[in-house]
């Protein structure tokens, strides 16, 4: 039986040995990096979700807005850049980062508002307290490399600063998706390696991961039996060291 155990161990190590080294190395990196920095929020400031001081009665009554947009699942009073809007959810997923669909309606004029480039830039700037200016803007369809889990088209606003900060604003809702920068990308790279997410799908439940995890079980089990075998035969002797 032992020859088989040894063969399994050797061949499994040939198949997945390099990935094991990658797992241990990336694991060590997660252990030592600054997780606060890795969040990518170095230049993010909280936009105080300040409800505009506008009295409720000064807004358009919700009934009239809902009559105009009959396919609405939920209406929410929101404020974007301290201005009152109604956010109408047209298609609702379980989470905000799944595929959703919205209308934004000005709560005073009733005008349908689109998050265009200048609007997205203003939202991004309000959340940013770093030293850089806006360098470039692009509308990105998912997958978004910096936020793989977000499945909605988003504006990417790039700032010229030492960390190459990018701010993402969801096109449909004007919601701030988040900030990303070189520190976050560094950590994300090692997460990609650790999760074997070589196709960048933002998941660790991939075929290659499951297959390698399965082979790893064989490698570790055969290694365990081998170690016990060496122990039982009394071959762990300090003299031999």
């Amino acid at each position: 039986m032992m020859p088989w155990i040894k063969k399994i161990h050797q061949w499994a190590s040939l198949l997945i040995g390099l990935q094991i080294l990658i797992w241990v190395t990336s694991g060590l990196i997660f252990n030592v990096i600054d997780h606060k920095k890795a969040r990518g929020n170095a230049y993010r400031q909280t936009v105080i979700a300040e409800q505009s001081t506008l009295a409720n009665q000064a807004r358009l009554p919700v009934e009239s807005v809902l009559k105009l947009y009959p396919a609405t699942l939920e209406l929410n009073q929101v404020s974007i850049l301290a201005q009152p809007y109604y956010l109408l959810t047209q298609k609702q997923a379980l989470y905000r980062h799944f595929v959703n669909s919205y209308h934004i309606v000005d709560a005073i004029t009733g005008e349908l508002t689109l998050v265009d480039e200048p609007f997205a830039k203003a939202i991004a700037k309000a959340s940013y307290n770093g030293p850089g200016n806006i360098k470039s803007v692009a509308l990105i369809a998912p997958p978004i490399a910096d936020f793989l889990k977000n499945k909605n088209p988003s504006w990417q606003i790039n700032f010229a600063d030492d960390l190459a900060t990018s701010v993402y604003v969801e096109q449909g809702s004007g919601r701030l998706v988040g900030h990303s920068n070189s520190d976050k990308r560094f950590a994300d790279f090692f997460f990609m390696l650790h999760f074997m997410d070589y196709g960048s799908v933002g998941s660790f439940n991939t075929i290659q991961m499951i297959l390698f995890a399965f082979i790893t079980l064989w490698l570790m089990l055969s290694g365990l039996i081998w170690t016990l075998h060496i122990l039982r035969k009394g071959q762990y002797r300090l003299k031999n060291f």
Partner: protein
Amino acid sequence: MENNAIKATQTKAKTIRKKPLKIFKLSHKLHKWLMLFIGAQFVIWSVTGAYMVFFDIDYIHGDSLIVSPQSKIKAENLTYSSLALFQHYPRAKNLSVGMLINREVYRFNIAKQAFIIDAQNGEPLSPLNKSTAMNIAKHLYTGDGEVLNAKLITTNPHFGLSARHLPVWQVNFDNFASPSLYISVNNGKVVSKRHQLWYLFDWMFRLHIMDYGDDEDVSNWLLFFITSLAFFAVFSGLILTYFKVIKPIIISGRKNRDSAKKVRRKKTLSFGDKS
């Protein structure tokens, strides 16, 4: 003479192989001894890691336990006007209109307190009573199991539930892995969903990152110490793989090629002889 010749070839072979053998021996010792002490953690990493990747993370999160209902608001059902609402609750903020199962409702906050009002008649629906909470849970639940029971949690939530969601109704279903839905008492929304495999996943993660405290901290010293040793254990293992698997393949490949060449040469020679 003959003996000397054999000796000479032997020493020659030794001098050539001396360096690689030293690396092999060192790696062998390192791998053998390090794995004696930290091999158990490798087994834990592989078992916990396999659990985490074999089960779909969305399933672990309980995403498949509930539907996201797509019932639309009928504006004509808002017979209790928002104007009346604001007159009655002048300090209402963050108003929203949505559905509670199949009726239109207003949700809003006064200070930090959330409220639900029936949009047809202005009747307060919050705090939710037990039967309404159970109806909401049944309406959203995707499984076929019956509701076992429901209990109100107002303080000291267990570790899988965030305190900011309180108070909630925990509605338990009679299905595999004991699923529970948590319904906010004040806004009637599902704030959390759990089943036993989630708790198991949480334990697997703690074991994976070697956090034996309770703050799920990846930056702990134990992990640093063991992972650093693990790096050398794996690296030496890879060197052994080279000597024990890769090199024999190369050598046997070369031998095969050489012998094939020899055979070919012999054949051509014999052909040559004939002609």
